């Protein structure tokens, strides 16, 4: 599984295999569903994904208005009643129908936070909730928030499971 924060730590190479820096931001086309990653920002310049070469003046700027670090990572997730349900701790990337890199899901909870702080041992035992992209909607009129269709909030789901495991009286 490819994640946004892991990708940001990897060096970006040009077509000749030379490192050109680290990506500080990933650009996605929010018009597509799920959003297709079209490029990245390396050293303050926009680089189109697939060409693997730094853009020079006059090149086409990658399409897209969803900046994954700025607009998605660490923003709050609300449920449909407006109640806070966590923050996006990690963005999961996958392959779309034509092999394009797409945003497939987000992860909330303690696990991604601890992993990003370098506390990987603790992270392995910490809880996390995965929300598929299809269940996420940008909050209208509120920047930096997404609402999610969380019909069964995961914690309550676990509680129901525990209750069902009790032996019948």
């Amino acid at each position, binding site marked *: 599984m490819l994640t946004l924060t892991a990708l940001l730590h990897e060096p970006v190479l040009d077509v000749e295999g030379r490192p050109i820096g680290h990506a500080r931001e990933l650009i996605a086309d929010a018009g597509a569903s799920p959003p297709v990653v079209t490029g990245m920002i390396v050293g303050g310049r926009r680089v189109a994904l697939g060409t693997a070469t730094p853009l020079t003046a006059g090149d086409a700027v990658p399409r897209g208005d969803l900046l994954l670090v700025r607009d998605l990572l*660490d923003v*709050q997730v609300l449920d449909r009643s407006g109640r806070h349900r966590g923050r996006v*701790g990690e963005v999961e990337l996958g392959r779309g129908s034509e092999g394009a890199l797409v945003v497939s899901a987000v992860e909330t*909870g303690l696990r991604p936070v601890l992993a990003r*702080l370098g506390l990987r041992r603790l992270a392995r035992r910490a809880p996390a909730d995965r929300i598929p992209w299809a269940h996420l909607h940008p909050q209208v009129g509120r*920047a*930096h928030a997404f609402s999610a269709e969380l019909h069964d909030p995961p*914690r309550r789901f676990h509680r129901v499971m525990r209750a069902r495991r009790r032996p019948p009286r």
Partner: protein
Amino acid sequence: MPVAARRGSALVVLAAVAGPGLLAGLSDDDAPGITTYSIIGADYGYQLLWVLALSTLALIVFHEVGARVGLVTGQGLTGMIRDRYGVRAAAFAVLALVVANVGTTCGEFAGVAASLEPAVPRWISVPVAAAGVSLLVLRGSFHRIEHILLVLSTVFATYLVSAVLAHPDWSAAGRGLVVPSIPLTGSALLAATACLGTTLAPWGLAFIQSYAVDKRLTPDDLPYERIDVCVGAIMTGVIGAAVVIACAATLHQSGTSIKDASDAAGALRPLAGDLASSLFAAGLLGASLLAASILPLSTAYSVCEALGDEAALDDPFSDAPTFYISYAVIVCVAVAIVLIPGAPLVQILFLSQALNAVLLLPLLVFIARIAADTQVMGRHASGRFASAAAWGTIVLIGVCVSTTLALGLL
């Protein structure tokens, strides 16, 4: 609409909106706050009143900024820091907030101990108070006693009367208020730093933003919220100034330095005579218990918000372990520090406030930057004047803290 009716509706809205500024401001007059102001008055007379005036201005500037960010973004302080600057910056802010709040919570429990000693030894009063406030807060009946504690802590308003009855030198007080001067000694700088740290407390900044969010206030409420912030901050400053003036006119005149709570109570003698100690103890106890209830709660909320693991008081432990563990750790560490045999209570109260000023700096930088960020705040972003006031305050506190640190006093 008739003018009278419009005025009437404006007052109704103001009454509905008021709260965050008043509570966050008045809660600054807690046990460490009163102790710090008492020490300033007893040791330096009226000379450092200007520091309190500047601190009050800084309080207005940053409480307005905090409330505005809360109203516009609908998020608390640490959550907003994570949103804009990522998880590491949020972890750093939470660490600063936890250290500062543990220090101040120590101050609150030291206030409980000081108000009841020698009648009740601290190894009984402090654990009982800690268990009591924890039960009340976590069992959800906190709101019932909140008002009683608030009324009890208004005993400190008696300083206003005491300050007048002590026949202070009003011209010297006026001079001290507007003419900046400070003895060039380490302890005077430490006192000025503690005054800034207690008036503009880190937990107050987190609290006002979270409380504004909790009240579901919107940007439309901003004009009323500004009045709320100004009234709360000015009341804090006036009570603080009354404490300094009362102590300057009584303790400073007689050359008394404050070593324990009974020394500080001496400033209430012109008003209460022999009852001064009891009156001071009652006020100290009420203010300490109120702040000791709010502080761990506010800190636990900040921790959970940064981790994206928000919780409510009615959640069971299995659903909100981060919340309950944060709360318990803060209370237990604070109680353990106060119970160290021979721990100097007044020194703990005073130094915790100087530490506040140090840890305040990174938080203020985050708040000032978020408030000026047009991507987040839109048309409510800080303008040139508000930004200049915020950064001016940060530089002032930075100079105070770095000079005090350079002299090796912290």
